[in-house]
């Protein structure tokens, strides 16, 4: 392998640069690097969230002989060949946040348990709808692995746990503010009885909350989903949203680098059933697809958003 006498180089490849969630993850990654010592984190990603862009980046990382690549993938399948090539050249590859198909990585770190996220996003809406009613999902891009998995999980729990909640539509805003805005408007227009919009994406949730605010629907339509506290605080404050949830992106970035370092240096081994330490965050256990899940999503509402918006 490309182990060398100098520092361990770990690349944190994100879906796109200039996205608040990933910038927060980078913070955690840098923390981990400092803690581990002798680790250099390369924070990189394409400008537009495309698989092709990430492939070019992985190619240049391979050429740089990095020790490990930790990637949040724009496409679970398209990146597999190039990541396989990286592994062939002795580079440790893990995915985090948005996964890669098992053959393209050694392990995957889910920010949280998929089923749990699915349930949480519905619960966030249901908690404020005692009578039940229509809700709709505004997702990111139609190819986003993680969102699709959460939505699947959410649909599964609906009939048993939330019988009064009626999911009327699932639309895609492509993590683009304009598209998300149009889609949110479309949902509101075509479903007059809509009670909540669930956006399990930090871009979509802001767009939806802005639409609700602009159309004076505060109190009528509740926006919820996954949001960065710092970006979303004002919508909790103005009442467009009662509560949202998210895991801690800083911890996520920290964990990704910690795990990648462990596997790259041989301290840890990625195999089903293995328990891997992630330093100050704790430890995770790999399932039979070599995936692990971190903490359950954390909920933000009026009581705590102020505090967290200062952190991430």
């Amino acid at each position: 392998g490309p182990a060398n006498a100098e520092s361990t180089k770990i690349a944190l490849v994100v879906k796109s640069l200039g996205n608040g969630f990933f910038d927060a993850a980078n913070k955690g990654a840098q923390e981990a690097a400092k803690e581990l010592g002798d680790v250099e984190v390369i924070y990189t990603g394409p400008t537009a969230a495309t698989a092709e862009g990430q492939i070019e980046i992985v190619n240049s990382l391979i050429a740089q002989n990095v020790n490990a690549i930790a990637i949040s993938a724009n496409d679970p399948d398209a990146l597999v060949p190039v990541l396989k090539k990286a592994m062939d050249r002795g580079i440790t590859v893990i995915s985090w946040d948005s996964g890669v198909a098992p053959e393209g990585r050694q392990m995957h770190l889910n920010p949280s348990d998929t089923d749990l996220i699915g349930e949480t996003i519905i619960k966030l809406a249901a908690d404020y709808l005692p009578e039940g009613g229509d809700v709709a999902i505004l997702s990111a891009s139609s190819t986003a692995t993680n969102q699709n998995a959460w939505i699947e999980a959410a649909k599964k729990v609906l009939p048993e746990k939330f019988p009064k909640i009626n999911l009327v539509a699932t639309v895609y805003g492509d993590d683009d503010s304009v598209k998300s805005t149009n889609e949110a408007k479309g949902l509101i227009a075509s479903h007059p009885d809509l009670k909540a919009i669930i956006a399990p994406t930090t871009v979509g949730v802001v767009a939806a909350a802005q639409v609700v605010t602009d159309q004076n629907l505060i109190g009528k339509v509740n926006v919820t989903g996954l949001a960065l506290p710092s970006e979303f605080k004002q919508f909790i404050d103005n009442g467009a949203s009662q509560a949202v949830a998210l895991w801690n992106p800083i911890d996520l970035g920290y964990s990704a680098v910690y795990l990648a370092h462990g596997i790259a240096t041989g301290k840890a081994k990625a195999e089903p059933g293995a328990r891997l330490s992630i330093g100050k965050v704790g430890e995770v256990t790999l399932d039979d697809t070599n995936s692990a899940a971190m903490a359950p999503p954390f909920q933000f509402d009026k009581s705590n958003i102020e505090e967290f918006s200062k952190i991430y």
Partner: protein
Amino acid sequence: MSALAKNRELWLVAAIALLVAVITLRFPAFARPQNLAAVFNDTSILMILALGQMAVILTRSIDLSMASNLALTGMIVALTNANFPGIPIPLIILEAMAIGAALGAFNGMLVWKLGIPAIVVTLGTLTIFRGATFVVAGGTWVNADRMSPAFIALQRGEFLGLPVLSWFAIVAIIAFYLVMTRTPVGRSIYAVGVNPSAAVYAGIDVGRAKFIAFCISGMVAGLCGYLWVSRYVIAATEVANGYELNIIAACVIGGVSIAGGIGSVGGAVLGALFLGIISTALPVINISPFWQMAISGTAILAAVILNARSERKQGRIILKKAEAA
């Protein structure tokens, strides 16, 4: 063909009416005045941009850099606002227009003074401006909590029952109408596109007219930079990525001839509205959003074919009798 049938704007109005009617069949509330006003408001930015693009296309040029200019200017004004929240919004708007115009002038100078084809210049500045957006913001983004309330609120305010954003569009339409039809500058932009060599004989500096058109499109893109970031309350590198082709498509649907010299303010506005209605209506009538792209592609092709038919050059008609027949 009667004069009526030849009038492109009327055709477009008919097409739009048909489109609205079809949508209304599936979703009756669509044709309600409030909803139509909302569609207009949603399309405001595209309309303003299409007007700027029209000025450039009329001179036989093209501005591929508008969307990038919008992103860069939007980022700069958002940063200005974030760092100096005290600056009044009218000044911010002036700043946006000035920066946009300066970027447009950069394109225009290269076209005018060096004679580089507009498509090459703006293909280059398309990536340069967007890259600069990333650089000026240091790779970060500006979101709602960093923008001042006034920055966000202005276009959402109402005036005479319409959102201020719609008024921006209305003022832009009126201004463009006056400039393009009633000022020597506007007419010289047309003249240059219709026949550049004849324009020289008429005392018009062709390069300068192109330069002015680029300044106009830049200024408009800059203004829309402010409108965009305050509308979607986010200024980021990716803002309006790829939007340049929507702007051109709006012009083309509106009957602006890519060969220059032909096009009207009404046409460009209607072309933008047509696209705006498609993009706002599809989610509403439960047509899969995956159909949207194919539908607008078909609309563009249909518009081009129709326009070409009405534009077809007639023979010179030497035979007197044939003329009468």
